[in-house]
């Protein structure tokens, strides 16, 4: 399953950073910078992921039974995390997304500096992806 392969890759990449927190943060920041910023028309309340400490927006398109995600955040590290989630779920069918299990977050230890409160934020993000998938399935 390609979702799992991508997660494995992420884990490998972070393993190479050898538990160096600063490097991990730099890497996340870089990843976040790779995300195209959302235009104001998409930075709307409907796209906000509730339950995150910082502001996180997630938008999507649905074509050929595949979901494409666009996201943004007002903080660099969160944006990096969001970009990881997007890379995992992008271009997948709703069914694939709904059946997937996220394991890379725990295995990379990314939760460590994401914050105890913050991990709910990650859960909230994951949920948002799945809700989008569910809605696409129903409507598609």
């Amino acid at each position, binding site marked *: 399953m390609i979702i799992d392969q991508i997660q494995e890759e992420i884990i490998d990449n972070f393993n190479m950073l050898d538990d160096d927190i600063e490097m991990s943060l730099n890497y996340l920041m870089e990843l976040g910078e790779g995300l195209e910023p959302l235009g104001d028309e998409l930075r709307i309340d409907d796209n906000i992921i509730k339950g995150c400490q910082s502001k996180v927006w997630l938008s999507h398109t649905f074509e050929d039974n595949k979901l494409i995600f666009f996201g943004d955040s007002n903080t660099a590290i969160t944006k990096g995390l969001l970009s990881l989630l997007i890379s995992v779920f992008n271009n997948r069918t709703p069914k694939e997304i709904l059946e997937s299990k996220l394991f890379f977050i725990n295995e990379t230890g990314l939760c*460590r*500096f994401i*914050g*105890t*409160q913050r991990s709910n934020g990650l859960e909230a993000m994951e949920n948002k992806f799945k809700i989008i998938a569910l809605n696409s399935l129903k409507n598609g």
Partner: protein
Amino acid sequence: MSNFPISEIRKDFPILETKINKNDLVYFDNAATTQKPQSVIDSLSNYYKSFNSNIHRGVHQLAEKATEEFESTRETAKSFINASSTNEIIFTRGATEGINLVAASYCKNFLKKGDEIIISEMEHHSNIVPWQMVAKENDLVIKTIKVTGKGELDMEHFKSLLNENTKFVSIVYISNTLGTINPVKELVNISNNAGAKVLVDAAQATSHKNVDVKDLNCDFFVFSAHKMYGPTGVGILYGKEKILEKMPPYMGGGEMIKDVSFEDTTYNTLPYKFEAGTPNIGDVIGFKKAIEYLNDLGRQNIYKYEKEIRDHAWKELKKIDRIKLVGTSDSKIGIFSFYVEGFHYYDLGLFLDAKGIAIRTGHHCTQPLMDKMNLDGTARVSLAMYNTYEEINYFIDELKKIISK
């Protein structure tokens, strides 16, 4: 005799090595507060030495670690009482604060003039006064279940008190003066059928027996860490999530809000809505070790051992003619309230203390019960799992000597 690892357990409690007037300390004041195992004491030091920090909302690693440990006590407590969710576990200062919180907050939203609250004659002041206070303010009526000569709740009398105005029943699980284990499950069932919510004051229960809020099906359940081998200054209020959600906050402050503005403040979700201000972080973290200590030994095993030493103490006490026991229910834990005719309990307490034996004397915060029994106080011996046959025998011997003075 059971194979309860009593000598290992005693080694875990450093205070038990104390000498009082050259005698070994015999600590029989466990209903007032229990002693603490080394693991609890160490966890307090360890917290302050290595990760003390204010919790929640923190980005740095001390805050992370402190938050994680703090919240993990909530998890542990949830399993310990078999709650459905950590949202049902509210940290308080102790049983007393839990009862006050429910009395003030629940009453505000759910009780109206003329509604009735039932408590019993054997309640601790902490389960009387908060109700008197809200009753006075809101014109509610308090009714009290009679206690029988053996020190049990008169269940027929209880049933006769129920009517359509009964909205709340607040009852002690195990009496701190009599040792009686009340039929709380039955009480909850009857009360709920009558449309009343039930709070169980489990201050004396959690260290002695298995407790299960789902099985009891009570609406609220309160207890204190310090009475179950944990630190002073922490307790837990359990409440059914659906009810807690509808209750207004008790105190306002940091932590318990979602958004504050001068126009409109919205409150945080459960359990935080009821935890205003910086909580007692260190002691909450230490509390977990106390629960783990009980879990590791197994509450069934503790119950069994305590029953053995209780039976022994009871048998020996009964042999002394001049001793009058108060609270003789068969369903009781090792709490013995008694008096000696012609020998004031206060003098008795002092003489026992000279022998290193710590007991409590007085009304035990149950004055209405004392009034009912026509006493102004008793001497009370209350046992815990680290007490031994030898200690009981020593106590009995010294007791006999003293009262023959």
